[in-house]
């Protein structure tokens, strides 16, 4: 199932062809049913999105007006929460945004390069122990990070790299995210082999076939990888919590969390404001990359 989904060009269910719409003439009864379904779906949308909307609205309210006020109507437009929240912690919030951006950029570049290389080997090359290596790669996807975290921490500590971004970036340059290797293997398998073979007859080596023929065709899979890496790294908490203890190196999630500890000094309003700031990049990434995101989840079952 997985490969066909990727190969299909309109892999977005929304662009489904009319064949799936009931062919029978709509009876009044089915029209009522349809309307009821919309009512039901819209109420679920309302319930599901209400907390997030309330957070956004509350971040624009004066502190005293946040609690005990479930409404989404905004009477005043208070920007003070944002200016106060921005400077509420040790460093301006821009520091944490920048730190997160560095980690995210490193992770994306690393995953794009090394996962696609590994995928090329698994999808197109013949080599010894390929089956075993592939099985190891799949098992790594399911392996809980906790079982390697202690020795990994020791490695980074002995290398003197705790409290740097390297423990969060270097693993991505070693294709440790098997999920993306798998995603790209599936994608390459869907591309016609004739392309490689024609290039090989023209004398192209693997490096050229990979860089000049497959990589451009893999753009959708690369986009899916980039957007998932963005979201997961932006949201990642465990790793960043463990490796970054210097407040100047805090990334957004770790900084936000320290807001709670500092709650007595800072206001709820500014906490909400910075929470909103922290999810804006996610919302932007979602809007831009929605197509690739949905396709990626439908194909491989990402989180």
């Amino acid at each position, binding site marked *: 199932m997985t490969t066909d989904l990727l190969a299909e060009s309109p892999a977005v269910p929304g662009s489904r062809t009319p064949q799936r719409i009931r062919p029978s003439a709509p009876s009044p009864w089915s029209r009522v049913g349809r309307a009821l379904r919309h009512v039901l779906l819209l109420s679920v949308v309302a319930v599901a999105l209400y907390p997030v909307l309330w957070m956004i609205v509350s971040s624009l309210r004066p502190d005293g007006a946040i609690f005990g006020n479930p409404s989404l109507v905004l009477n005043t437009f208070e920007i003070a929460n944002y200016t106060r929240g921005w400077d509420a912690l040790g460093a301006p919030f821009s520091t944490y945004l920048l730190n997160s951006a560095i980690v995210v950029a490193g992770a994306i570049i690393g995953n794009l390069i090394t996962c696609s290389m590994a995928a090329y080997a698994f999808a197109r090359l013949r080599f010894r122990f390929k089956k075993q290596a592939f099985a190891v790669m799949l098992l790594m996807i*399911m392996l*809980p990070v906790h079982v390697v975290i202690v020795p990994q921490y020791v490695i980074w500590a002995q290398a003197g790299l705790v409290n740097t971004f390297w423990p969060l970036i270097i693993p991505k340059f070693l294709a440790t995210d098997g999920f993306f290797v798998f995603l790209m293997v599936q994608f390459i398998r869907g591309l016609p082999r004739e392309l490689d073979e024609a290039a090989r007859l023209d004398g192209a080596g693997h490096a050229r076939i990979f860089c000049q023929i497959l990589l451009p065709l893999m753009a959708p899979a690369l986009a899916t990888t980039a957007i998932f890496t963005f979201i997961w790294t932006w949201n990642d908490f465990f790793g960043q919590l463990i490796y970054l203890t210097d407040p100047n190196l805090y990334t957004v999630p770790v900084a936000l969390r320290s807001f709670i500890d500092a709650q007595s000094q800072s206001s709820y309003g500014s906490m909400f404001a910075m929470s909103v700031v922290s999810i804006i990049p996610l919302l932007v990434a979602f809007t831009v990359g929605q197509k690739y995101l949905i396709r990626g989840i439908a194909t491989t079952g990402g989180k």
Partner: protein
Amino acid sequence: MSLAELQRMTRGRGEPRVKQETPDNKAALAFLGPWLVGVVALTIGPMAASLYLAFTDYNLLEDPRWVGLANFTRMLGDERLHKSLEVTFTYVLFGVPGQLIVALGLAVLLDRGMRGLTFYRSAFYLPSLLGSSVAIAVLWRLIFGGTGLFNSLLGAIGIPSSTSWIADPDTALATIVLLHVWTFGSPMVIFLAGLRQIPREYYEAASTDGAGPWKQFRSITLPLLTPIIFFNLVLAVINSFQAFTQAFVVSGGRGGPSDSTLFYTLYLYQEGFGAFRMGYASALAWLLVVIIGAFTLINFWASRYWVHYDD
């Protein structure tokens, strides 16, 4: 990770090969180089080390000291560990089915040529996008606090309440389960993709035979979707056992009140990176691997009785 992939592997069917060519061992080594270094240095090596550490006493500063099975015998009497297992099992037991049922229900509602599918899908996916962020955990703390949104909503419908749902040991875990159910969007997208694979003709035939929507759901949709349900279930169980961020933030890193949100991974974190009992933390990590492995195997075993494959 796909089922098709697993099946292909277990059946031992390779992919079609070009016979006359020589193996590309050298090229493979170059392309897989980074991955191989990662596997050896960051996965297999650390796994071996962590297995060794599980039998030691290790605080990062002094050399590990071999203690035999002491870490494992300690587990037997460790009440916080037992509590964390209870919390995590409860979370998996309610959170996973809860999330999957909501996801499946909405996917089925959405599937039959509904207008606005793209809008609904994005709106439903949004909680999954944000759900694992610290921002949402912070929000959850404030929603279910004593003066939080939830109580003001209850007040608005005439049930005044000042309970702090996250400070009450009886309800704190339920708020985190609810947070998990709220992120129904990503399994829903997988269900939608699965629903598209069901041939339209089945429904037409059933419709001609006079089967109503419920009958069609029971006898066509549900059986044909069981492989996808199974896939989602396996993934959700594996991921839920590793839940960390939300419990950490909602409970302020402590797993309270009264350890009622002491998730397994949170306890592991406290032991390893709070108390620096790295040996015990490694033993805990291996127990987690065994638990997740066992549940996955049980899932695969049980799937014989309810999952229908088309061949």
